[in-house]
């Protein structure tokens, strides 16, 4: 096939990009070469629209061992231990084929982590679906949950936390973001940089099939009416093979034979070989006849672009081939020497004794396109003028019941009960809390992780929203007693070619950068997913932030369930009564406009760090951050989890009861302390200039408000815990 402009455009390349390829090669590429360029230059692999902006994120810190640019980020947790972690999207495939899309998303992110030598110790996910009324939502939710569980459960890695939301903007484009944490010894971290000449290049894992060809290109385009036709671009997962691959790789890594290792993820053999060569400033020569294939008569084009799962590429030390092969034989996995490193700085492919591709590596990587896309700055919306009388006439308990049963607030037990969250025997805080927590096996340390996003805030004002998500992640870690270390981000947006969507991206990234820089909570890994839209409508901007923190002594971990009758409950942080963009405003008032709550980074940091000190001094019996649904929702959940009640009293503020209890001001927590510690705690809060309110005292089983309004906790529990189960069983 002779390549021309039309074929290039069919591959998702732009006219200019095709012209540039011909210039760089000083000739017309052949079809295999064109396939390689299209795979490397698509948005998903090249970050061509986002690179310019991502550069501005803070990525360094005292505990950062490896920032963005490797398979995953790495942070130091002391005693020669390090945590490797990353979040990644698998949105498009999951909408087309929810089970396999979600399953391979989980498989892919775990591979990114164990490629670096780390044993995965926890999985998390952030999943977003269309309106609960939409006809596809139920099946997509069921498929995605089964897929995540199917893969993670089989791998024997606990799924310890997650986030699920429903919003009509995802009706035609759901989001599935998967995150994995792994544990590694600091001196046994593996990287993808090839080094040395004539070193054997090894292919291990599953055989290559025709599945997932052009998966990365599919992920770089918008959906139209023909999505059913894209099913063949979705990969099929095999968690059993991945489990074998994990054990085999870790066994090989225990020795010293690996120079570089890279998993075959998006764009398969193409991106893995080019990445290793590019980082090592070397060339790679591959004989494609040596690649283990699942199907007959696969062409070089298909072999290079297949996204078959559970495969790795390794550069070995000379003479270590036999030793490595023995390990992969033991685990029943394919092992083939397919090529070698060269000094040519080119990627050279041979098939049936013919050279089928000859491309300088730098043309694919350094010379890949980078765009400074046009973007539109968002204005801060005007505050709503709500009718105070209407609000004050609402019955607070009725409002609370509605909010607790709202799909975005209700208990997600139906989901996380399908995930094995206790395998590996170190899960000390399971899903349903502020963060999931796993012990560092055999030590006193524990690692906390949470994943958050606030699409509604980001949609209302991207800059504020971007800051808010980072702050929420910070708070979720602090609420369990963990010191926040670093974040990974999954940036889900609409088309970068649309100025408004691009503006949302630019400003969310700016917000994330500002908050993470101020909170010393750097970004160490991440991924960008653009074109989350159907036809010309983008999703609400949805950056997901995965936060990781350390608990030095896990016996000091806090949970959110109320512990003891007569204990005192405080709100840490100031409540101004910000109702706009709150769940209350959207669900009860049906008001979608207005600005999101403001972020005060000084208070955020000060409140959080002070609370962490209190937790460290064993003064906090339970803690929970206040987010969606405000104080009332947070307190109710603490009651439900602890099977306790509370006598609430609104402090004498100028704002109304409804505003006080349902506002979504930021930087706040609900904490429980014992009466005996009260003076000590208040002294510390005062000394650190942290605002607090005395909210009430814990009782047996009733929620009282100002001694007149009351409801049993059992009733609240019913509203909170049954909605999703009922929805899914209808």
């Amino acid at each position, binding site marked *: 096939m002779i390549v021309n402009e039309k074929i290039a455009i069919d591959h998702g390349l732009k006219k200019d990009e095709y012209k540039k390829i011909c210039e760089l090669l000083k000739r017309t590429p052949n079809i295999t070469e064109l396939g390689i360029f299209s795979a490397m230059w698509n948005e998903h692999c090249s970050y061509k629209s986002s690179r310019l902006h991502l550069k501005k994120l803070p990525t360094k810190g005292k505990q950062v061992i490896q920032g963005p640019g490797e398979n995953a980020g790495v942070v130091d947790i002391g005693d020669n231990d390090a945590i490797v972690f990353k979040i990644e999207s698998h949105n498009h495939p999951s909408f087309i084929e929810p089970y396999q899309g979600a399953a391979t998303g989980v498989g892919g992110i775990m591979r990114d982590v164990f490629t670096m030598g780390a044993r995965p110790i926890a999985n998390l996910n952030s999943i977003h679906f269309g309106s609960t009324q939409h006809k596809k939502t139920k099946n997509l939710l069921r498929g995605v949950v089964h897929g995540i569980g199917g893969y993670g459960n089989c791998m*024997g890695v606990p799924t310890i936390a997650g986030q699920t939301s429903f919003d009509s903007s995802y009706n035609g484009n759901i989001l599935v973001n998967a995150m994995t944490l792994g544990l590694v010894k600091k001196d046994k971290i593996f990287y993808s940089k090839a080094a040395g000449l004539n070193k054997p290049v090894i292919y291990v894992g599953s055989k290559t099939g025709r599945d997932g060809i052009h998966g990365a290109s599919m992920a770089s385009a918008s959906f139209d009416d023909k999505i059913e036709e894209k099913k063949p671009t979705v990969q099929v997962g095999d968690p059993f093979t991945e*489990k074998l691959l994990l054990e085999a790789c870790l066994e090989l890594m225990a020795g010293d034979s690996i120079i570089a290792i890279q998993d075959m993820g998006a764009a398969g053999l193409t991106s893995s070989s080019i990445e290793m060569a590019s980082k090592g400033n070397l060339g790679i020569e591959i004989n494609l006849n040596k690649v283990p294939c699942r199907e007959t008569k696969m062409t070089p084009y298909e072999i290079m672009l297949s996204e078959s799962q559970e495969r790795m590429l390794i550069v070995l030390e000379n003479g270590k081939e036999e030793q490595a092969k023995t390990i992969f034989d033991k685990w029943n996995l394919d092992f083939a020497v397919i090529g070698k490193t060269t000094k040519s700085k080119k990627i050279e492919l041979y098939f049936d004794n013919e050279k089928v591709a000859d491309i300088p590596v730098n043309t694919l990587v350094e010379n890949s396109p980078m765009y400074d896309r046009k973007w539109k700055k968002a204005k801060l919306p005007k505050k709503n003028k709500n009718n105070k009388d209407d609000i004050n006439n609402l019955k607070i308990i009725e409002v609370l019941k509605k909010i607790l049963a709202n799909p975005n607030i209700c208990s997600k037990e139906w989901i996380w*009960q399908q995930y*094995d969250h206790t*395998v590996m025997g170190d899960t000390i805080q399971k899903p349903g809390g502020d963060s999931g927590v796993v*012990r560092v096996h055999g030590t006193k340390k524990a690692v906390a992780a949470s994943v958050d996003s606030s699409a509604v805030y980001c949609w209302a004002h991207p800059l504020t929203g971007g800051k808010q998500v980072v702050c929420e992640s910070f708070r979720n870690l602090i609420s369990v007693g963990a010191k926040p270390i670093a974040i990974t981000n999954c940036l889900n947006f609409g088309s970068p070619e649309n100025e408004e969507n691009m503006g949302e991206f630019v400003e969310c990234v700016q917000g994330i950068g500002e908050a993470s820089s101020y909170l010393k909570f750097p970004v160490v890994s991440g991924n960008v997913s653009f074109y989350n839209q159907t036809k010309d409508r983008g999703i609400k901007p949805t950056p997901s932030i995965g936060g990781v923190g350390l608990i030095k002594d896990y016996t000091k971990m806090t949970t959110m369930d109320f512990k003891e009758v007569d204990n005192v409950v405080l709100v840490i942080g100031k409540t101004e009564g910000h109702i706009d963009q709150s769940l209350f405003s959207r669900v009860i008032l049906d008001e979608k406009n207005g600005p999101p709550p403001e972020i005060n980074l000084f208070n955020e940091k000060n409140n959080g760090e002070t609370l962490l000190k209190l937790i460290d001094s064993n003064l906090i019996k339970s803690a929970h951050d206040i987010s969606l649904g405000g104080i009332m929702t947070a307190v109710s959940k603490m009651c439900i989890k602890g099977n306790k009640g509370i006598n609430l009293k609104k402090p004498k503020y100028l704002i109304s009861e409804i505003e006080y209890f349902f506002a979504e001001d930021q930087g706040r927590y609900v904490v429980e302390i014992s009466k005996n510690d009260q003076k000590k705690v208040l002294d510390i809060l005062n000394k650190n200039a942290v605002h607090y309110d005395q909210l009430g005292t814990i009782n047996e089983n009733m929620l009282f408000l100002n001694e007149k309004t009351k409801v049993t906790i059992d009733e609240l529990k019913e509203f909170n815990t049954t909605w999703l189960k009922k929805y899914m069983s209808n």
Partner: protein
Amino acid sequence: MKSAVITFPGSNCDRDMDVALKKFGFKNKMVWHQDVELPKSDLVVLPGGFSYGDYLRCGSMASKSKIMQSVINFANSGGMVMGICNGFQILVETGLVPGVLLRNKYLEFICKNVFVKINDKSNIYFKDISSNVLELHIAHNDGNYFCTNDQLKEIEDNAQVAINYCDPEGKIEEPFNPNGSIKNIAGIFNKEKNVLGMMPHPERMIDPSLSGEDGSYFFKNLINNLK
């Protein structure tokens, strides 16, 4: 006391079991599925996981593994063999314990704490456990125990039902049955009661920081009774 845990390709609770056995005083050895001989052991454990991916019927491939002939011989000569979760599925496939394990009734994987009632304390596995009810943890997709009416009569007559799902007080009723098992059966013995298969994971409940501690009673008694 010596124990051995078999690792099949796809086992994923093998390490957890190793940790638990060692914690309560066993000298444990890990045994690879392709080995032929079992090391000298007082207890052999088939751990949880997804042996061979469970792509065929759960446990069926593993039941034909090289090491399994030795395990079967060991069991038939009176040796203590315990299968947890996938291990139970493997035991069923070997025929060492009767019945089958079907897909859970609601067709979903279930991971949660459950209560089980101990039926008979005259056997070595449950002897001396003071409580009649244990809180254990389940995590499985195919734990729905089923057998024919004749088999059921036989295992009931021989008191082979080891544990049943129940409420915290020990009431064995349908609402406390997580997976649709016939008669709430969570674990059964062979006729001689040296082989035990059960779905719950005692090894995940051995520390107050985890989902609970009742698994500790199980292991403490096990090693004491074996001495």
